[in-house]
């Protein structure tokens, strides 16, 4: 198995001085494709997540990057058990939640919250901000009565930079940035330990993006929150996160400390992604030689043989279309699944 090495490493990582709050081991999520008339036959799978393993430590930001369809959002949804995994373990705070029932999941639901990309879609338009904030608190019995909930909601609003009088307003009366602040306040209302941030600023204006990012970082520092950050924006990932996993067609191709991975990328896909991310400086940008990938991301149903990236890879070698490369560590906190690693060592 290709990812065994990481899986073992992850499982044996008891000695780590930092507490692991989330651990994913050999996680798979396949969406079956049915075809046929009257009797449906399963003809294949969309392998949205195909055997990934990683761990997230308390207080850190773990970023999952990749392009559309790479499986990053499915990873978050599966970890939250919004969809059931096909195989593998999801350990949250030491418990494998991959097979828990609805009721058993409840305490974990409280500890894991999510902030979505589109604040408009994630806030119920018929509820006031006060209702949006107090409902989860009352449901999870964080507070004992409505009055207590209201007091806490006002406090949360203050924390995200809004005013108490905003309690009685409806979501549509707020700007995009303010809505995202409300979504963050709602996530915080139940004292979570892990927050999934699914492209939380991509719908926002540039000048507002920094406000939200700074707000999130403040909370992380003050409350010891752990973030799992889903993004396609490498610049933002670099700024926010400690560790990063780069996904391509349902697999992690490169993973590790964000500075190490970004300053010294090994996998050609990581290189291409970084090279494609424009830098806001014309002096650098105009001199830069980009790695321009040819073609598009292949379909996750019919994936290329061997390394999934090989048809588009500028460094393709003979063995690349034979077998998927093993994931190997090149430093304490940097793993890559690419044959270039061997070459590098030679």
């Amino acid at each position, binding site marked *: 198995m290709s990812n065994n090495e990481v899986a073992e490493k992850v499982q044996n990582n008891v000695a780590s001085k930092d507490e692991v709050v989330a651990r994913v081991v050999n996680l798979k999520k396949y969406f079956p494709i049915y075809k046929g008339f009257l009797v449906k036959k399963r003809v294949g799978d969309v392998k949205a997540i195909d055997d990934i393993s990683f761990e997230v430590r308390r207080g850190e930001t773990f970023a999952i990057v990749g*392009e*559309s369809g790479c499986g990053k959002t499915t990873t978050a949804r599966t970890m939250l058990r919004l969809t059931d995994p096909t195989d593998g373990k999801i350990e949250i705070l030491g418990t494998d939640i991959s097979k828990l029932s609805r009721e058993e999941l409840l305490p974990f639901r409280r500890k894991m919250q999510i902030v979505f990309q589109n604040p408009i879609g994630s806030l119920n338009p018929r509820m006031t901000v006060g209702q949006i904030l107090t409902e989860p608190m009352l449901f999870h019995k964080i507070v004992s009565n409505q009055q207590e909930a209201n007091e806490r909601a006002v406090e949360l609003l203050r924390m995200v930079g809004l005013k108490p009088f905003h309690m009685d307003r409806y979501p549509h009366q707020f*700007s995009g*940035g*303010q809505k995202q602040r409300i979504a963050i306040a709602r996530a915080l209302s139940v004292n979570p330990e892990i927050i999934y941030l699914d492209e939380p600023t991509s719908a926002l*204006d*540039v*000048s*507002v*993006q*920094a*406000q939200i*990012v*700074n707000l999130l970082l403040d909370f992380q520092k003050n409350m010891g929150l752990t973030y799992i950050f889903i993004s*396609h*924006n*490498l*610049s*933002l990932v*670099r*700024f*926010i996160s400690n560790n990063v996993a780069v996904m391509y067609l349902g697999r992690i191709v490169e993973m590790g400390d964000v*500075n190490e991975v*970004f300053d010294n990328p090994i996998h050609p896909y990581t290189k*291409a*992604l*970084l*090279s*494609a*991310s*424009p*830098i*806001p*400086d*014309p*002096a*650098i*940008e*105009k001199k830069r030689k*980009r790695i*321009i*990938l040819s073609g*598009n*991301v292949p379909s996750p149903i019919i994936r290329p043989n061997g390394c999934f990236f090989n048809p588009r890879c500028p460094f393709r070698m003979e063995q690349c279309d034979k077998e998927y490369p093993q994931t190997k560590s090149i430093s304490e906190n940097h793993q890559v699944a690419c044959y270039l690693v061997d070459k590098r060592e030679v």
Partner: protein
Amino acid sequence: MESILSVRNLSTWFFLEEGVLKAVNDVSFELAPNEVLGIVGETGSGKSITVRSVMRLIHHPGKIVSGEMIYRGRGREEDIAKMSDDELTHIRGKELSMIFQDPLTSLNPLYTIGDQLIETIMQHQDVDRTGAWRLAVEALDKVQIPEPEKRMNSYPFEFSGGMKQRVVIAIALSCNPKILIADEPTTALDVTIQAQVLDLMKQLQTEMKTGTLFITHDLGVISAMADRVMVMYGGRQMELASAEDVFHKPTHPYTHMLLRSIPRVDIKQDSLESIPGQPPRMIDVPDVCPFAPRCPRRLDKCSKELPKLDEFEPNHYVRCFNPVEPGGDLYV
């Protein structure tokens, strides 16, 4: 060299029930042939309406309330603002072309790529269908679409996002326009595909010497594409200078803050600068500096009158009463 397009004192307003939305106010700029003028700004800054005004694609309840847009591509000065609908159909697509943000929705889903290309070519060039077909295949080939002959009969849904945007570019450039207007052409694309398309655009622009108005909110993308940059905020130009000057010597406090609020992929930053507050809604706004409420360098008169767009240094225009010294610090 004489500019191919001169926009002077352009104002475009929308007459809504709740009031007048002053989307674009008194905007002036020149576009040289073979030049890429980048226009950056946030949602509602007026950048899109500015270029749509140039295309005369402003619909009820919007109206170009003043200004002229002199086009010099046909050996004489023509004011686009005064053209009849009939004249417009001759200039659009032939002299001026436009690419929209979302390639997924820019192509009519019911017609083949070939139909949509040929339709454009036959509208503007004196060729029969066979000739148009040949030109269309050439155009597809130019935007590096593999097997262009075969793809002529494909429908848009059979293309990926990046390929669609290539087709859109092929249509826009099929009649060798002198001006190309690109309204956030890569925002909807994945980052590696964005790189492909930007690369292609830059290459074609250099090759065809098309004067380009390139609109984006992404300062990274603008760095890669633009020769000159115009920064817009609240329906007005804030700063207009060469790309190097805007990025290295930002003079308007807004430009200054904006540059410090965005993360970079190439270096690890310690902090990002937040611009407090929200971008303004442009309904019935008075003629004052629109950035004043969020500006740390605000003077009393900033909220009372409107600064002029001054030539602060040669070819570096700024609209500010209290600009930042080149290389200086924002906070005093």
